[in-house]
């Protein structure tokens, strides 16, 4: 299988006051298409920073990120936004739904930022995902009126609306009880298994990580295993 993501000698440094803080130190990761992997590490290890760089939300200080063989550092902000729109589907710990929009509108939101004509109707697809994730009847509800597990399923549906190649889940079970958390994990595994999507789960929870096929262990900004 081909490489979908290549993180090549990536460093991320911040100035914290007068002190230079190295969040990521010389990270090299290769993710193949269709992999189900976990980036694991304690809080402050740099795993979120790495996820933001892979998810094209942040840029490395040094080093390069290749998406499907293309060097992202040469991309304009607009092109990167479009790539985020089409290539990545995010699932956040905080769900990050927009409370004033309905469930249906939240799920459809990425499609309004699509730069090319979609070969399917996003509304139909959203309704299909609502049905598939057991959210029927909630289409016109608002995010703050449904449970955490339901909100995270909405977030996954939103991540899927653009048919992305990559699902990036940042502590997807972190704000959920274990039952809801397991359901979400099952869903993500299913997406990888049935739909051959590349799924990366960022977590501090070894139990969650064990569910994946590959574990990338991060500590103090370095890959340790």
């Amino acid at each position, binding site marked *: 299988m081909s490489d979908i993501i290549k993180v090549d000698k990536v460093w991320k440094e911040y100035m914290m006051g007068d002190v230079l803080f190295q969040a990521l130190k010389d990270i090299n990761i290769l993710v193949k298409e269709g992999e189900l992997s976990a980036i694991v590490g304690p809080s402050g290890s740099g795993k979120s920073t790495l996820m*933001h760089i892979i*998810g094209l*939300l*942040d840029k490395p200080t040094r080093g390069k990120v290749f998406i499907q063989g293309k060097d992202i550092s040469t991309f304009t*902000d*607009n092109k990167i*936004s*479009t790539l*985020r*729109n*089409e290539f990545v589907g*995010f699932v956040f710990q905080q769900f*990050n*739904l*927009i409370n*004033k*929009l309905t469930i249906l*509108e939240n799920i459809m*939101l*990425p*499609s*309004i*930022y*699509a730069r090319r004509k979609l070969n399917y109707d996003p509304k139909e697809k959203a309704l299909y995902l609502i049905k598939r994730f057991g959210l029927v009847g909630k289409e016109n509800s608002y995010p703050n009126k449904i449970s955490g597990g339901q909100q995270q399923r909405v977030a996954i549906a*939103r991540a899927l609306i*653009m048919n992305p190649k990559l699902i990036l889940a940042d502590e997807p079970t972190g704000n959920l009880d274990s039952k809801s958390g397991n359901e979400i994990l099952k869903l993500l595994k299913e997406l990888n298994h049935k739909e051959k999507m590349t799924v990366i789960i960022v977590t501090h929870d070894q139990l969650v990580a064990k569910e994946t096929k590959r574990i990338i262990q991060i500590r103090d900004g370095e890959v340790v295993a």
Partner: protein
Amino acid sequence: MRYLSFIFKSAFLDFSRNKGRTILTSLGILIGVLSVVLLMALGLGLKKYISNQFDSLGANLIYVMPGNEKAMTSGAGMMGGIKFDDKDVLRVKRIEGCEVVAPVFAKPGIEMEANGNSETGELIASTDEINIVMNLQLEEGRLLEHRDNDKRAKTIVISPKIAEKLFDNQRNALGKTITIEGQNFKVIGIYKSKGGGGLGGSDMDSHVFVSNAAAYVFNTEKKYFAIYAKAESKDLIDRVKKDIKTSLLKRYDEKQFSVVDQAEIMGTINQIFNVLNTVLVAIAAISLVVGGIGIMNIMYVTVSERIREIGIRRALGAQSKDILYQFLIESVLLSIFGGIFGLGLAYGIVYLLQSLFPAYIDLISIILSLGVSSVIGIVFGVFPAKKAADLSPIDAIRYE
């Protein structure tokens, strides 16, 4: 299409969540648009009123006035300066193409008493030719005639308004006596109303007409403040004017008098009103700018409140220009709401005013006010929107 409807919906949802804030923000623009539109409406009304009054006078009129034309525009020429006498009147009468000549003596601010009632007005003394020059139409009795002057008859022609004020009704007035500064005048006729009103001095219906001879008690010098003439036809106006000027130059200096026609006077008045109106509207426009600053302020607040939302949208693939448009559309909508309601309110006020004053709102005022309010929305919205658009996605989505 879906994109736009999402952006508009998002804006409206935000407005409905912050109703008080939305209304108060729009209020700034509302007040600005209201004051600009209202002042424009009043200016237009005033202009129309004056031109109507001019139209109610006869056509092809030429005015011989003291003072030079430049001074006339400032109104200074009307006061002081030379007065015309019978020799001047004769000179004007001799001009070929000059159909009617009416020397006029005027005494503004007179107090008329009759029947225990009193009313202020303006006494105009002239010959019977004033009927033609001022386009007087008969309502009751008769207008001034040649014989009134010849006999030095103390006769007076009044308006229906004055008749009603002094004698309760028009029919009662005929044959009655009006006292003006101790002099008694017999009412011989009532002219048809010239309309207008509410503006005091310029009200044509406050005029009362007597013969020159009858007014000699007030006009002891037997001089006139102006000579009104009427050219036989429109084409002759320029020539007649020139001839009058040439003739009068033999007696007076060029600076001492002026010969103007209605169009010139109208032009001058319009000029004054245009300047006045522009200045007033410009002052009112300051409140629009203040309203715009209010919008800018609120948009900055809105942007800071919604940093996380901006981050989410960016993470889902919104380009920075999508964010820019979203906030820009919100500020333009806020501004246009204010504009529309301001315009609506102005309409209401103008409607109520119309019974007192001929104010009206023209299409240009509407286009201008809505155009200006959209422009204000853009100009004052662009900085906050740019701030939102320039946020880095990672900082925005991590914002607590």
